[in-house]
């Protein structure tokens, strides 16, 4: 009698056991993305989505992460800090995200980063460049895979140091990004070239984000004594500025010009041959900056799928997904705390080059590239020729300078 009653229980146990394994194996790894998907900057969210989907499809084609399929969720931050916090919470609590990635705006990133310690979920920032999130506001869960303001401006100042211009001014957006770019430019250039002069605050050209008519800012710069101009405008602002400035004779070769995000492909695709040649431009990732097989494969796959060359924001999202996968394989787990350990100090080959996530402040040491705009019949857009490459080590400020105190 007793034996008979055991049999069904045993069968049930076996079934539950195998079903359990099956369930665990089928449970996907969930990545929550938060980008600007609406409004004037929607193009950034769209590019990021393309990069993320390419990376996820590549992972899933090879069996996913630790044998589990990768699933993605996209949410719109609208570029607003409060919305950003809300969608990140939604990712963690409703979508059950194992990791969150994205953020285009420095304002959103500064607001979201401190929340991550409460959510205890790793965040990989792929675009927002404010030094704060890997500086004063750094924390255990916040990482950044993309170049930050300091790194980009370190390259700008290295190039500026070799230029003739002695007196510098700036044209930038009138919020923290523009002001911080200028602040670091002054700091770094004065170190490299002690004689450099910077125009006083009242003579600079900071324009509100909603500006579409830049003529008065262009006139102001052209009437100033400045011989060099650091332009930190980006996206639609930069497109408007460049077109209007060309018409007004701004690019007449009389002044040295640096555009910190002039090599962004969304800008180059919009401007095409209206982008003047022979201007120094920077970006966070340039698709022709290196010949590594990883980069070539990425550019080729991206171009085949979307019929465009990858923008830096597409690369940022792609890189973050690949970094997460590498961290998970390294620690053999997708447990959030273990992933944090896996990301710390992670070294990984990405299209941009070999990167290392610095354990002290969670900023990626990543190579950068600037170049002179040039026409090339093989490309529909301006490309960079020659390219000046910088290693992550030479452009990243030491941890002591970042103000980061990791807990």
């Amino acid at each position, binding site marked *: 009698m007793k034996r008979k009653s055991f049999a069904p229980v045993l069968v049930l146990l076996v079934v539950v056991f195998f079903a359990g394994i099956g369930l665990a194996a089928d449970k996907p790894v969930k990545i929550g993305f938060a980008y600007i998907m*609406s409004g004037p900057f929607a193009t950034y969210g769209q590019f990021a989505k393309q990069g993320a989907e390419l990376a996820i499809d590549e992972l899933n084609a090879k069996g996913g992460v630790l044998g589990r399929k990768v699933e993605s969720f996209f949410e719109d931050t609208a570029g607003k800090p409060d919305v950003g916090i809300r969608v990140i919470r939604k990712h963690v609590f409703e979508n059950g995200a194992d990791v969150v990635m994205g953020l285009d705006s420095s304002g959103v990133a500064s607001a979201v980063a401190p929340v991550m310690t409460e959510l205890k979920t790793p965040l990989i920032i792929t675009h927002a460049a404010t030094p704060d999130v890997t500086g004063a506001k750094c924390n255990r869960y916040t990482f950044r895979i993309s170049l930050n303001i300091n790194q980009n401006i370190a390259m700008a100042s290295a190039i500026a140091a070799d230029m003739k211009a002695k007196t510098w001014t700036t044209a930038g957006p009138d919020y923290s990004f523009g002001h911080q770019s200028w602040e670091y430019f002054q700091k770094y250039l004065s170190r490299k070239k002690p004689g450099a002069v910077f125009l006083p605050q009242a*003579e600079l050209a900071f324009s509100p984000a909603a500006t579409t008519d830049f003529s008065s800012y262009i006139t102001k710069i052209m009437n100033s004594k400045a011989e060099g101009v650091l332009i930190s405008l980006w996206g639609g602002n930069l497109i408007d500025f460049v077109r209007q400035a060309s018409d007004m004779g701004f690019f007449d070769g009389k002044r040295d010009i640096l555009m910190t995000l002039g090599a962004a492909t969304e800008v180059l695709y919009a401007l095409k041959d209206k982008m003047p040649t022979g201007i120094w431009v920077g970006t966070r990732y340039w698709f022709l900056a290196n010949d590594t097989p990883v980069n070539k494969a990425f550019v080729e796959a991206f171009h085949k799928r979307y019929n465009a060359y990858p923008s830096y924001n597409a690369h940022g999202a792609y890189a973050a997904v690949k970094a997460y996968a590498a961290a998970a394989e390294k620690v053999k787990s997708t447990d959030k705390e273990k992933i944090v350990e896996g990301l710390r100090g992670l070294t990984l080959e990405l299209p941009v080059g070999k990167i290392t996530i610095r354990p002290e402040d969670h900023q990626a040491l990543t190579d950068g590239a600037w170049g002179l705009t040039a026409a090339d019949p093989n490309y529909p857009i301006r490309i960079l020729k020659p390219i000046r490459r910088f290693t992550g080590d030479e452009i990243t400020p030491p941890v002591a300078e970042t103000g980061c105190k990791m807990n």
Partner: protein
Amino acid sequence: MEAFFANLLNGLSWGMLLFLISMGLTTVFGVMGVLNFAHGSLFMLGAYLCLQFVRWTGSFWTGLILGPPLVALLSVLVERFLLRPLYGKDVSLQLLLTFGLMLFLDDGVRLIWGAAYHVVHPPDALAGSVPLLSRSYPLYRLFLVILGPLVGIGLWAFFNFTLWGKLLRAAAMDRQMAEIAGVRVPLLFTAVFAFGAWLAAVGGALAAPHQSVGPAMGERIIIESFIVVVIGGMGSFPGAFVGALVLGLLHSFGTTFFPQLQMALPYMLLAAILLLRPRGLFGTES
């Protein structure tokens, strides 16, 4: 001196664009009492249609001529089927409708043309620049500076000397009286709404060679247009002209002389006007 002229022209050309857009806004408000939040989206639609016609035909002029009537046609449908049932009801319903329309159009544009930035080139005849003292100035901007007053005079003549213009003014002054006198006010309203939309779309098409065409480009300009309309006086026609010029010049000279205040200047002016002349510079006491 040179800087002064450059700033003057910068301010005038921007002001003229603002004038065209505010003109439609203020006419629709003056005659119909409808505050059209979607006006900026109609501006955007004008720019996108111009872009599309340039892609098809390669000519900016076809975009400028053919695009705005299409936008006007769309707004005829909007007025007839969406707005008309709301006349005489709570004003907030109209605001909700036009606000919803704005969201709808902004997303619709993104679905059709994508989220990327686009560029429309000025026509060959207006490309390039002309010498101005020791510098050069873009021809297209001068074209805007000249076009603005011409459009203004044309509209003024229309309102003062044509039957339709007089009917419009009559309906704006006293709707009931106009109806009693035999004016078909519903038809007139449709025409006015379409006319406002046409003006917005013309502004959009004219703005296209001057700024990047992208989603939500209307949201930026609508705020300044509202300020223009309030400064000039709601529904006032010369008010829109003066308001737009003041705002344009404030923008260009403010950038040079008060850079730190520049973002706040239009709002400071707005606040001052609301305190001193709540009905605007050209508004009439009712």
